[in-house]
């Protein structure tokens, strides 16, 4: 049994304009200690998937799944999330400046979380807070503990946010676009920090990003999301070496490479389907350069033509059927 098991996760929002399917049945399995990247364009359902793991999908969202377990604990239909949030799962966000409470010093925020989850108070809690800050690469902890979030730089804010997320002793960290708002150099530092924390504390990390560069630097395995479905999953190395799904191929072709400077970046034509209207066939069919017969009528399922490399595409369904 994997550390995190997700089977047929669906998240829908009932709005007055109709039912909006944000996530339409995805399967994930994360092993303990790995960094798994969830990649996709904005609006593909990455963030709402991660919120579902913490029971934070905002109303009127409805979450259903065939199976949703973390470390053997059932997360499905749970009302009381107290022993999950913070204790088992921690989360950091895209915009650290907005994710830290502006009216409390970092010391106050850290000590409050430590006090709530670990029952430590006073000097013990402050010592743990200081240790956490050192852990995330903020050795100047005395100043940081007294500082308000707006007094720190973006990189320091994100480090502090990581410290706050880990303060309660969680082993599973969801990092939602943790570096998008940061400079490139700072971005690399934060990604290195995440890897270091994984190595040091055995964290399992779900890294959500739209940036394949981030995936290449950090992740062990990757899942590619498109319009609320998982279209391809593989090890990071394998994905970059031999992308299978036309969408993934398009994404990789769109990456700027050395030497491509000045020329137009390849972009994938067309628009993501809105999710309001159920698509009968493959959701990518309208934009796919290799679209053919069954694509518009039947939804492809995730198959593994190569062991450990899943892809949901009729190009491979046909192959599989033939072999």
């Amino acid at each position: 049994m994997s550390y995190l098991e997700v089977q047929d996760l669906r998240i829908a929002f009932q709005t007055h304009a109709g039912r909006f399917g944000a996530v339409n049945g995805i399967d994930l399995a994360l092993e303990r200690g790995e960094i798994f990247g969830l990649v996709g364009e904005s609006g593909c359902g990455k963030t709402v998937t991660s919120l579902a793991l913490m029971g934070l999908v905002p109303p009127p969202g409805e979450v259903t799944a065939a199976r949703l377990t973390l470390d053997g604990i059932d997360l499905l239909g749970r009302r009381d999330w107290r022993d999950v949030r913070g204790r088992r799962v921690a989360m950091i966000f895209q915009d650290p400046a907005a994710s830290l409470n502006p009216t409390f010093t970092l010391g106050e925020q850290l000590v409050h979380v430590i006090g709530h989850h670990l029952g430590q108070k006073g000097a013990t809690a402050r010592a743990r807070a200081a240790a956490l800050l050192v852990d995330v690469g903020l050795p100047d902890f005395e100043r940081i503990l007294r500082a308000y979030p707006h007094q720190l730089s973006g990189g320091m804010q994100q480090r502090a946010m990581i410290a706050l997320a880990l303060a309660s002793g969680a082993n599973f960290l969801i990092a939602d676009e943790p570096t998008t708002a940061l400079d490139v150099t700072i971005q690399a530092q934060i990604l290195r920090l995440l890897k270091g924390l994984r190595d040091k504390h055995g964290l399992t990390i779900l890294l959500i990003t739209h940036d394949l560069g981030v995936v290449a630097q950090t992740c062990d395995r990757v899942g590619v999301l498109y319009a609320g479905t998982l279209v391809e999953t593989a090890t990071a190395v394998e994905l970059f070496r031999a992308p299978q799904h036309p969408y993934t191929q398009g994404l990789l072709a769109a990456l700027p490479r050395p030497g491509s400077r000045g020329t137009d970046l390849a972009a994938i034509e067309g628009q993501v389907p809105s999710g309001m209207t159920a698509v009968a066939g493959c959701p990518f069919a309208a934009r796919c350069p290799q679209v053919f017969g069954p694509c518009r009528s039947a939804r492809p399922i995730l198959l593994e033509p190569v062991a450990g490399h899943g892809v949901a595409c009729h190009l491979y369904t046909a192959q599989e059927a033939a072999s």
Partner: protein
Amino acid sequence: MTLYILRRLALAGLVLFSVSALTFLISRVVPSDPAALFAGQRPTAEQIALARERLGLDQPLVVQYARFMGDILSGDLGISYKTKHAIASDLATFLPATLELVLVSIALALLIGIPAGVLAGAQRGGWFDQATRVLSIAGVSIPAFWLALILQLVFFGAWHLLPLSSRTSNEAAIMYPIQAITGFHLVDAALTGNWTGWVDAALHIVLPAFTLATYPISLTLRMTRAAMVEVLGEKYIVAARAQGLPERDVLFRYALKNAIVPALNVLGLSFAFSLTGSFLVEVIFSWPGLGKYVTDSILNADFPVIVSVTLIVTVFYVLINLAVDLIQARLDPRVVLR
């Protein structure tokens, strides 16, 4: 921070100066015959001449203003034509009663308005939100002087639960007189351990304070609710929930500290409304305060009193707003940057 405080103080000084100048101008320029107004009800020609001389109406406005300010700064607010007392000493008598009433009503506004606003904002669109919405709009629409009468009718007339009017009952005033120390009955009675007197004073303040508090409660509630709705949409609230903090902490600690800064903006306004509302309410509850003093002055055309009270109350109001700004800067370190 220090720079911010200095800037804010300078601004308040400028506003105070302008307020005094405007009060002066309105009192001398707006009336057709200022001297007649200052001379009291149905003045004789002699009294008008006296007032004209005292006001120095033949002097240029600048000179008049200098004298006006000189008198005020030396504590001379003129003479009331009704009581024949120095207005400054009248104010000293009446102000504590009003301030006690106003402070109790502001306390009610904060104690009821803020928690109710937090809950309404947290359950946006729920029944509590709907109910408080209608109630608070009713609260800012109801004429205070009429509400006072209705409350008297219900709590005194029908149910005999609370006294009709005044600050103390006659029996208590004779048997357990409250020794004047601060002029606040509740404080003085507590200081001297006069608990029978304290209970009597407390019962007497309930209706007028609640009447005065209706507007501030409604205002505070709506502002807190609006600020909560905004703050609860912020990422740091999602983050706090993701950290597994209990909802009570998220609402009343993490969200409220951010929401209270904009909500406090109405504290100054609430204070202004309570003070001027007391002009209407004190008459009905026979509360021996500033409001009764002012309304009597209006009836008796005691213009010098009205000018002085306008100036004094406005100065109070400006200072309260200054205090609110400084409190906000203390609560939210980002205020200083704006």
